[in-house]
């Protein structure tokens, strides 16, 4: 979607006033309609891929429970609907999804939606905080580098950005733990909250923020590095355009020109990348959650793949896809807001 958006900017249709709201609603409707076949594709592809993986949750389950009786295994197969042909299982799954039924996790003995919803807030919190950090740091550093181009500041920003771009997330996470938790003792090693600590109120919020800081840095600094590089080059490119030269000629201050004219237009590529990267942020959280024992969906996904807990894997895939689609729709709307000339086709 963001890719389509980028290409559409080549032939923008100028919209103004209240027609922008109409255009936004039109875009929203179009994107929601497009999301239906997209989701269907996601479900079908993931369902088929999971079926292709060797080993099944039933085999693992009977293994862990030392079940060898063929009658018991047959009963379990029937109970879990594994006797049905794959296409029928898929149809049943899609039909259930249409009723917002994500299935049942027999391994955990709870509905899939319950299994995921326990972990989802933690992942959303980590994703939002990491993206916020990445945007704030990336945009600020990119602006500074572009304003101080070819100075020591520019070089410093570039070197630091390159470092965080190259550093693997799990390594960075462990290094942060060693420095800030083990050596300095400032921050907790892992988890989302102090066990037995405050469970509500301001103290609980502070406690969670305390635990959130290191995983946010480990996940967010990579994307901050990406945004820094993109922002810097975008700022330099926009600064060469005629309307910026005109603004300067009108006698506006350098800061006013940079913030009001250059920055706003230079943000467009960053917003585009943000939409594309929502999925990779979710994937990256799997690794970071593991390093920091963050009780998010990533840990659940890892366990579910390892145990062939297909209903949960599929549920996470579907919800993850929904999140990415929603984020891309939001990005499209932000895009329209940033550049009023554009109506996305």
């Amino acid at each position: 979607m963001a890719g389509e958006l980028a290409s559409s900017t080549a032939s923008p249709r100028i919209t103004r006033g209240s027609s922008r709201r109409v255009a936004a609603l039109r875009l929203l409707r179009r994107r929601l309609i497009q999301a239906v076949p997209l989701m269907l594709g996601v479900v079908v592809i993931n369902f088929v891929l999971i079926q292709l993986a060797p080993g099944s949750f039933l085999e693992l389950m009977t293994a862990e429970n030392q079940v060898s009786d063929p009658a018991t295994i047959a009963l379990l197969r029937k109970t879990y609907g594994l006797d049905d042909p794959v296409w029928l299982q898929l149809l049943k799954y899609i039909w259930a999804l249409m009723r917002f039924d994500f299935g049942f996790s027999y391994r955990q003995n709870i509905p899939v939606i319950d299994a995921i919803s326990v972990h989802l807030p933690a992942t959303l919190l980590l994703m939002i905080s990491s993206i916020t950090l990445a945007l704030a740091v990336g945009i600020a550093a990119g602006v500074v580098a572009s304003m101080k181009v070819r100075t020591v500041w520019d070089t410093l920003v570039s070197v630091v950005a390159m470092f965080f771009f190259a550093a693997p997330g799990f390594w960075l996470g462990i290094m942060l733990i060693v420095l800030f938790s083990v050596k300095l003792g400032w921050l907790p090693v892992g988890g989302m909250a102090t066990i037995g600590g405050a469970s509500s109120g301001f103290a609980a919020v502070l406690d969670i923020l305390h635990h959130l800081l290191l995983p946010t840095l480990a996940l967010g600094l990579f994307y901050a590095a990406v945004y820094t590089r993109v922002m810097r080059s975008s700022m330099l490119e926009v600064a060469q355009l005629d309307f910026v030269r005109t603004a300067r000629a009108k006698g506006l201050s350098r800061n006013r020109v940079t913030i009001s004219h250059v920055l706003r237009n230079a943000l467009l590529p960053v917003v585009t990348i943000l939409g594309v990267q929502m999925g990779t942020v979710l994937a990256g959280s799997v690794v970071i959650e593991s390093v920091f024992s963050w009780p998010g969906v990533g840990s659940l996904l890892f366990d579910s793949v390892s145990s062939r807990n297909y209903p949960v894997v599929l549920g996470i895939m579907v919800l993850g896809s929904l999140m990415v689609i929603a984020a891309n729709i939001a990005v499209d709307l932000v895009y329209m807001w940033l550049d009023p000339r554009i109506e996305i086709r």
Partner: protein
Amino acid sequence: MGNDSYRVTRRIFGVGVFGAGVVASSLAGIAPARAQGTPKRGGTLVATWGGGEPQACYVPAGGGSSPTFSSSKLFERLGNRTMEGKFQGELAESWKPSADFKSYTIKIRKGVKFHDGKDMTVDDVVYSISEIWKKYAAASALTDFAGVAAPDAETVVMTFNTPIPEFFFSSLLCGNVNYIVPKHVYAGSDPVTNPANNAPIGTGPWKFKEWVRGSHFEYVKHDAYWRKDMPYMDRLIIRYVRDPAGRAAAMEAGDIHIGVFNPVAPPDIKRLTGTGKFVATPKGYEESVWSTTLECNMRNPIFAKREVRQAMFHAVDRSFIAKTVYYGYARPGTSPIYSPNKEFFTADTYKTGFDPKKAAALLDAAGFPKKADGKRFAVNLLAAGWFTENGKIGAYVKQALEDVGIAVNLSVPDRPTSIKRIYTDYDFDMAISNQANPSEPVPSTTQYFTTDGIKKGVPFRNANGYSNPEVDALVAKIKVETDPAKRKELVFQFEKIITVEAPLLPLVELESITVASTKVQNHSNDPNYLAATWYDIWLAS
């Protein structure tokens, strides 16, 4: 960081029968963590283990080490085994066999309460044995079980179709998850899906409080615990940290006090103990000794010849594996009964030590000389991917076998695929796998070699298809022999046959390690410490 920095003692259960080799030398001369002074009451102990979060807090069939670890603090068994190897009562006060060893009378402990305040009665014991043990927890051991009854309010009688050796029966009462569960919670339900499995009600020293999925279990002191004034501590937290480096950091930061079953990577063991703030000990695993095994699939005609199977083991340097892959925290395996087993291990067996020349000679004699391309034959080697070390061993075994002219296709699939390929599809020529065996060899050890152990789709049984009437008859005798000395002699015979036949043998016996803060007292004092109740653990100031 030299060995001097270690503050651990290696006092292997049953030491002296087999050389502890590299491990002993690396851990020698180090004192165990033992109780110091008057136990301190109160406080919170945070523990972890070298694996992930369980699928449920309690799994009636066991479900692996993770649910065993989490449930064993909440439930209790009828019996227990001391570090000295003696059996003692836990929820049972005593037990004794009938004259013909076909029934056992168990006296049940009085004054035991479940966490919900209800008394534990003989009805709970009868229900647990007939509905949980027989069907799930000990199904493979209770093949000759005839029934269980409670003649009075303090007595339970278990009857069998055949004579049952006392050691076997006592081991059964101490089985990992052979718990006494509350009948009033489980009766009339499917025990596997009972919601109480995620918030268990047991009789143990710790009472379930909360499970924060993805993070930890929180248990609190069971105030009505039958052991007077126990446990010492107020709270026990079992915390899950997926990454071993993360566990090491959490321990170093003081967030976790004790980690069982290899919580950190070997280099971190040395680093942590080197600080003087931690001890590491191999004690507490004597009743659950892990090994890495190599087995030959008898369905491949190449392995029908005993000489070929023996050659496979002669071609592999087990000491190299112990030193290189396990950093010395392992010792070469020689017998299907492992060296810490003081009841049944014998060193007097056929030795398949590292001898590539002998391996080559055996292969030549078996009719597999090197061909023009330098190869004798090709095999598919599967290294079960549930432990990362298995993949490394697979890479080494491939090299070692290629050195004697055997082409090897190595694969290291993940856990579900490994289970399917080894135990369901029998899709391997050779497999590197793992076992954890208690002292009692029947059926845990013997089922890897008997014909009735061949059960398609059931893991950790006889996957190689080895079938030998002599072995079957011998194991049948071991099952019913009630004279301890004669039984021991029969097991020795079993070991001798298996080491000669070599369908499956341990490459190395693993040295499981507990790492604990020096503040933690009374730990590693049970031969199956991961599955112990930890009622007497405490934290020094």
